[in-house]
């Protein structure tokens, strides 16, 4: 270790003074306010995770959003500008970027972020600074639930919706003895809690045999699967996502679990899950899924898929839809409000219904949560390719959380 040397404050202070001067200089050169008399474009500041394991979702959302912005501009609609910031999946960075975007970039809207804690933190700041925040990545039900408010919107189905949809699907089966499992983080627990509370209401006979929680980023699921198998439940219900989902599905196939015990997992037949698995996908796994590029087979969906493919050379995944809806809701709301005033746009967004690739979507007035249908089905090999099969659609009314419960939770 180096020996300590004495202090020479002059040099240090000189450095600090230079630092401050530099800051002052850059501070004085803040972004110019628009002087044109024509309508200024609405500026959106996007905070999302472009680094690390969750980055694939952020880039999907961004691409979907960009497509919506482009479509809006092409149709002669409102112009939307945007800038992006990477929060590295750290909520403290989400908040500091949010502050930079609002105070320095002077954005009109905030959007993002895949990290639920980050979404909650930014949502809080959005409320205080009165800058509307469109969440298209964070799935915590608290975002539009108990922590919701006027300045936050969500354009993706949250864990309450997922849980209710899963419960709906499982209630139609004959399984009684349930084993719950998942990745040990808020998302996993929230999906399972919501699913279980809804399932016990829909099907009072169900019995919880046990719970297993593995760490996020677990690589080998064999010990967990082996332990669960020995308990012999009627069905294994799993709350997991992201990289864990693919690894888990792989392990299910490798251990042959799906042939012994039925398994349910949200997004089990999503292309993002099945594609990396190749021909090692476990057949028979039940699941719910918010979006598929080939279902429903409607004109709107086809148009969206074609446009997305043309722009980005790949099929759109669920997060691309959420980003796209975020952009489309914003564009339509600006048009409806006939102004770029934030408050007027918020008013226009409440209760707004637009056409989307999955049909009509509405931003509920009371909680600002998007209401879209959800499909459920099972993984099967069709024409040599693994895909979702035996698909049914759940209407949004069947799966949206109760408004009364939310308003009650908020008032506490």
């Amino acid at each position, binding site marked *: *270790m*180096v020996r300590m*040397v004495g202090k020479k*404050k002059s040099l240090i*202070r000189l450095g*600090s003074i230079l630092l401050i001067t530099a800051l002052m200089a*850059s501070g004085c050169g803040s972004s110019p306010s628009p002087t044109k008399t024509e309508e200024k474009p609405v500026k959106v500041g996007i905070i999302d995770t472009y680094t690390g394991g969750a980055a694939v979702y952020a880039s999907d959302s961004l691409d979907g959003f960009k497509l919506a912005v482009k479509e809006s501009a092409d149709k002669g609609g409102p112009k939307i500008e945007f800038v992006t910031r990477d929060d590295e999946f750290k909520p403290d960075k989400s908040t500091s970027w949010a502050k*930079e975007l609002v105070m320095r970039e002077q954005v009109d809207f905030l959007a993002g972020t895949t990290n639920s804690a980050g979404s909650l933190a930014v949502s809080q700041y959005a409320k205080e600074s009165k800058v509307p925040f469109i969440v298209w990545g964070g799935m915590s039900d608290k975002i539009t639930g108990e*922590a919701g408010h006027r300045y936050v919107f969500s354009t993706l189905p949250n864990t309450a919706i997922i849980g209710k949809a899963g419960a709906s699907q499982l209630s139609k089966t004959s399984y009684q003895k349930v084993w719950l499992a998942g990745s040990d983080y808020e998302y996993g627990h929230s999906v399972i809690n919501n699913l279980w509370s809804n399932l016990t209401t829909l099907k009072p006979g169900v019995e919880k045999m046990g719970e297993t929680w593995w760490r996020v980023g677990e690589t080998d699921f064999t010990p967990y699967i082996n332990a669960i198998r020995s308990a012999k439940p009627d069905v294994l219900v799993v709350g997991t996502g992201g990289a864990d989902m693919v690894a888990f599905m792989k392990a299910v196939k490798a251990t042959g679990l799906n042939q012994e015990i039925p398994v349910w997992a949200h997004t089990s037949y999503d292309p993002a899950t099945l594609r990396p698995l190749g021909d090692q996908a476990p057949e028979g796994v039940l699941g719910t899924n918010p979006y598929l590029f080939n279902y429903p087979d409607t004109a709107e969906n086809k148009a969206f898929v074609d446009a997305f493919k043309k722009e980005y050379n790949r099929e759109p995944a669920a997060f691309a839809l959420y980003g796209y809806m975020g952009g489309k809701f914003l564009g339509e709301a600006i048009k409806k409000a006939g102004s770029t005033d934030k408050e007027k746009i918020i008013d226009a967004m409440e209760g707004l219904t637009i056409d989307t690739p999955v049909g009509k979507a509405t931003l509920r007035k009371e909680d600002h949560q998007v209401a879209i249908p959800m499909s459920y089905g099972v993984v099967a090999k069709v024409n040599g390719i693994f895909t979702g099969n035996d698909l049914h659609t759940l209407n949004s009314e069947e799966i949206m959380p109760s408004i009364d419960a939310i308003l009650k939770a908020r008032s506490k």
Partner: protein
Amino acid sequence: MSTNNLKLIENPKGKFSNYLGLGLAITGILILLMAPTILTQYYVYLLATVFTTALLATSLNLVLGYGGLLHLHHGVFFGVGAYTVAIVTTKTSWPFAVAVMLAPLVAALIALVIGWFCVRLRGLYFGMLTLALGQLVWAIVYRWNALTNGDNGIHAIPVPEFLSSINSVYYTTLLILVISLVILYMITKSPFGLTLLATRDNPVRSESVGINVKRHRLTAFVIAGFFAGISGVLFVLVERSVAPSLLFWNESAEVLIMCLMGGLTVFMGPMLGAGILVLISMIVGLYTEYWLLVLGLLLLFLVLFLPQGILGYLMEIYNKSQTRRGEN
């Protein structure tokens, strides 16, 4: 551990340079006091975050630079301090002042527990244990949903009315930073501080002269934890939300980098490192998502070419010029 060959400064100018230093320090503080009237709100907020981080980095240096200990997970105490404020204000009805006073004490307590296990080891082993035990604290915070809200974090932390504006938070953090720095500085210059240096440079000899090396190290560890807890409080004042990611190892690594960048051997080094790192991360983040790559390259450069840090390097130049002048 190897020692670099830097001469200890003897200060021939004596009182004059001390007064010069003091005068410039006061000028610096006055300029900072005026900042909210000159800068836009965002930069005031940014400076407040710099102050918070500067305190954290300086507290680490008590153990790292002055104590010569490989402390790899200092961020844990910062996180514990922040969480204490968050939990007390949102889950109890105790007044805010209690939360603020409790935070550094809880942080110091955790530091005492972790430090007690670690100071019995030396060098690399000390480092590994701080890492392991720190991660254990992270795992507990992450998993203890009932207390900490798990990985959702705690948000909308209520603060008293007078702390609700950016300017008031700025002045508060500046005030607490200056007071803490003065206290820390006096500690480094006190007999305890000088003994700590001795335990760093030659622990065997210190032991043989009758100094309880373990006790000194543990005390330094706890003091550092205490001030890290304070910086955790400042963090809550500025950001008003906490999440378990604050206690993960990569946050502590960034604090280490700050100390290295500014200079482990100079009291003000970590402060400068904190300021530079916060600024650079913000500027780079405006233009690219590859901030971590930039940080990695920056760190590589520092490690290979400037391990004594910026201020350490300036000190070397100054010393060389002094000795030359002394020879004439």
